[in-house]
């Protein structure tokens, strides 16, 4: 039996990295939108900015733990190899995490910032010099961060897609699939966080914005998965056989029922059901809290499953099968 070289830690990392990219993107976007000269979604922008750096920071930690020699992780940064997606990704991930933390700092409420620095010993003067208000630079930081967030979202797919030995991954659609899944996870995570924050109840226009954003991303993701399946089925034998893993093989149920069904189409259905009356019939958007909770949780569940299926099924796909000795 073929053993899996990459396991659950990698799955979780790919999910968390994408989640941060999506959170940053949605928060940055919300930061730019204005209605009559006033920021339209300042609370979404703040929530997203404050949440964005954490998943990728945790994910990178898991990535390091997954190494055979975790203490050698620094070697990733003493080399640069442009042909290796992992080398490029390490730099991308680090820069993005840095920007996400700076962006979160720019959104930190004044009293939180003072509280944070009050915990730093007074003798650490160099650290206290960082206690500055950079909220005026939010838009600039968001603009610098956008390409890096997109880069991280795409990179997680490229990491797998660039491996010519695994026909399940080796298509140019995996990168985009992971990107839109990441962006949709980010929007969903924001919706979930806003709904769960009971001290500052989410407002209807905020729910509407996040649901609209998520519908766009999920739809794009869906229309990338569709050609992935169609192209794969019409491709050369190795790719066709690799696709069998989700079209009859061991990952069929988890792909179709749990990912495509519960993780993609059901939340999409809920969100369209919520939004359509206000779009088509001009009725007021209500934004049912429970439905938002269910839909956003399912999107996150689906985002995780997509990585799970791809990491595991991809490793099973191969041009070459081992002989009797293994």
């Amino acid at each position, binding site marked *: 039996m073929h053993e899996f070289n990459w396991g659950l830690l990698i799955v979780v990392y790919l999910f968390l990295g994408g989640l941060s990219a999506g959170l940053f993107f949605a928060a940055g976007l919300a930061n730019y939108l204005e209605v009559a000269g006033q920021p339209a979604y300042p609370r979404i922008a703040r929530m997203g900015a404050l949440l964005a750096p954490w998943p990728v920071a945790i994910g990178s930690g898991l990535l390091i733990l997954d190494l*055979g020699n975790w203490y050698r992780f620094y070697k990733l940064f*003493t080399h640069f190899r442009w042909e*290796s*997606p992992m080398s490029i990704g390490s730099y991308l991930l680090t820069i993005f995490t840095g920007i996400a933390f700076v962006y979160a700092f720019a959104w930190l409420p004044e009293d939180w910032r003072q509280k944070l620095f009050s915990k730093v010993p007074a003798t650490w003067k160099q650290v206290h010099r960082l206690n500055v208000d950079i909220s005026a630079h939010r838009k600039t930081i968001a603009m610098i961060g956008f390409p890096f967030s997109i880069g991280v979202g795409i990179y997680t797919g490229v990491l797998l897609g660039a491996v010519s030995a695994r026909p399940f991954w080796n298509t140019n659609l995996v990168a985009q699939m992971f990107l839109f899944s990441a962006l949709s996870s980010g929007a969903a995570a924001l919706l979930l966080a806003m709904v769960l924050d009971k001290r500052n109840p989410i407002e209807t226009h905020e729910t509407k914005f996040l649901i609209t954003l998520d519908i766009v991303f999920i739809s794009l993701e869906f229309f990338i998965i569709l050609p992935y399946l169609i192209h794969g089925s019409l491709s050369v034998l190795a790719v066709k056989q690799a696709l069998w893993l989700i079209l009859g093989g061991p990952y069929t149920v988890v792909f179709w029922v749990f990912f495509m069904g519960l993780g993609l189409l059901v939340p999409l259905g809920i969100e369209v059901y919520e939004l359509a009356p206000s779009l088509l019939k001009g009725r007021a958007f209500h934004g049912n809290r429970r439905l938002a909770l269910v839909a956003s949780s399912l999107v996150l569940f689906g985002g995780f499953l997509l990585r799970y299926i791809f990491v595991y099924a991809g*490793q099973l796909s*191969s*041009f*070459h099968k081992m*002989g009797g000795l293994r």
Partner: protein
Amino acid sequence: MAMKKRRYALVIDSRKCINCKACVVACKAENEVPIGNFRNWINEDRQGEYPKLRIDFEPEQCHHCEHPSCARVCPTGATWQRKDGIVLVNYDECIGCRYCMIACPYDARYFHEESGTVHKCTLCNHRVDKGDVPACVATCPSKVRVFGDLEDPASRIHELLATRRYRVKEPQTGNGPQLYYLL
């Protein structure tokens, strides 16, 4: 004086293979390969049912590819290729990310638990550099394997590839494998 160009490769006449696994044992002894891991192995292709049964044996190991995808994806450059074609792992640089194991179309690498690094066939470079042949080649009782320098027109391997028909495995991955199987 310019160094003579070398390109080491293996020609495998798998019809001579009797599946005795002496090559596997010799490799394990020579390179201290841990229990459960292999640097070379023998594929068995079984066709039909007893009594109309046919089994083909086909030894395999790292193909020391012309364009090794393992070396390409390595983020630290720990996997590298010598000028003579041998693909090696610099164990001091390997961080154990296992990306190379995933990128190898032949699944020829294994994770060495004790050191946390990835190991593979070295074509016994320690022997080759002393003018010897790899342990698997030296031990094979039915002379399945021929080791040599493709750049040397006088070599046996050169002659075999010039006169016999052969194939390589999975050329479609673009790796340019250098294990030549005689037909």
